[in-house]
Structures are given as C-alpha cells and as structure tokens.
C-alpha cells in the first residue's frame, strides 16, 4: 500500500498557535526527551533602498510534498528520530510572518541538533518552491537562496 503523502502547505503565514498545537500533540509520547524547531520568518530586507513588504510563494505543490516525504524518509534512516513535522507557506506572507516550520523529535538532544539543520538545508535545496519578493512600492524581484 502506498503511504499517503502529507500536504506541507499552509495558506499565508504560519501562525505561532500551530507550533504550540504541534508541540502539545507530542505530550502523550513520554519517551521523547528533545524537540528542535526551526522557524523561518520573512525579513524586510532593504535592497537598493527599497524594503521587502512581503514574499509571495508559489510551488509545484505535488512535487514539493513528495520531495518533502523523501527527505523525511532519508532522515529517519540517517538519524535516530521519532518524528519530523514540516510546514511551508504558500501564497503571500507579510514581512514578520513565519513561512517555514520544521520540528524534529527524539529521545535525546544530540540527534535533534544534528538532524534539524540537515533537514532544513535539504528542504531549501530540493523543494520546488519559488519566492517573489514584493517591495513596499509594489515592484518585485525573485528571491534567490544563498
């Protein structure tokens, strides 16, 4: 049976309450000792004197979801993790809003500290997601990841 592929996408900014809800969802798993959470926020970078007001995210969502599943499977093999949660915004997120949320859980802290940076880097490199930086004057440029 093929595993159901989870949808990582959330319309607009990710709300801090989703983080609280996801943490609370692990309370019954009393063998978990450590969580590590990464949150990415839209920065109001200044570029040539113009300030970023928002980022509009588009994606090949089906492929992004399947790739995110693949990165999860690889990470479960590579690290001793009990769970991995991934969310990414789609559509417009204003400066100051959260656009990515990744949480890893394990028995001990060493594993989560190793796994999280790896997973976030893989997601940035392999998920077909595209950010369009909208400036305050409504002009735009396409985001480039370093």
């Amino acid at each position: 049976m093929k595993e159901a592929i989870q949808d990582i996408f959330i319309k607009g900014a990710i709300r801090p309450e989703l983080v609280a809800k996801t943490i609370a969802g692990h309370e019954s798993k009393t063998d978990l000792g450590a969580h590590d959470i990464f949150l990415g926020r839209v920065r109001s970078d200044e570029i040539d004197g113009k300030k970023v007001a928002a980022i509009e995210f588009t994606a090949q969502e089906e492929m992004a979801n399947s790739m995110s599943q693949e990165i999860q499977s690889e990470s479960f093999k590579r690290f001793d993790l009990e769970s991995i949660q991934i969310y990414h915004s789609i559509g417009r997120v204003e400066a100051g809003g959260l656009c990515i949320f990744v949480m890893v859980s394990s028995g001990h802290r060493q594993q989560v500290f190793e796994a999280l940076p790896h997973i976030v880097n893989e997601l940035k490199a392999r998920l077909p997601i595209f950010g369009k930086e909208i400036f305050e004057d409504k002009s735009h440029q396409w985001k480039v990841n370093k």
Partner: protein
Amino acid sequence: MKIEFRYHGKLSEVLGRNSEKLQVNSQNAGDLIRELILQKPQLKETTFQLAQKNKILKSEAPIEELDIDVFPPFSGG
C-alpha cells in the same frame, strides 16, 4: 510529440505565461533543454532545469511524459 511545459516562478514572468504546448523531438532531457532554448530564446540567459513525474531530470534521462516542469532555482524557506 507535443509536450506541455509548465513554467514556474521567475520563468513564468520571463516567458509571459504559466504553461504552453510545444512540438518537440528530443528523446532525453539534455536534448530537450537545447531544443527548448531554440524555441524560447529568452531561456538562454536563465538557469533552469526540467522535471517529469515529480523528479528532476538528469541530462541523459529519457523523456517519457507529456507534462514537463521547467524550474528556475528553488527559493523556498
């Protein structure tokens, strides 16, 4: 064969559309990239890669689908 190309991110702006059907003859991804640049010279100045069935195509990969994603560099997160 007629393939539907889906342009993503910056490329949809460069090409002025999100998708279009084009008549092409290439059997693998490397050839298809060259053929696509011939038909769409605006792509010459950009970095892009192709995907089919939700997988990025290496140069030697055979073209098996009639839907192809055309991706600029990813910039999520």
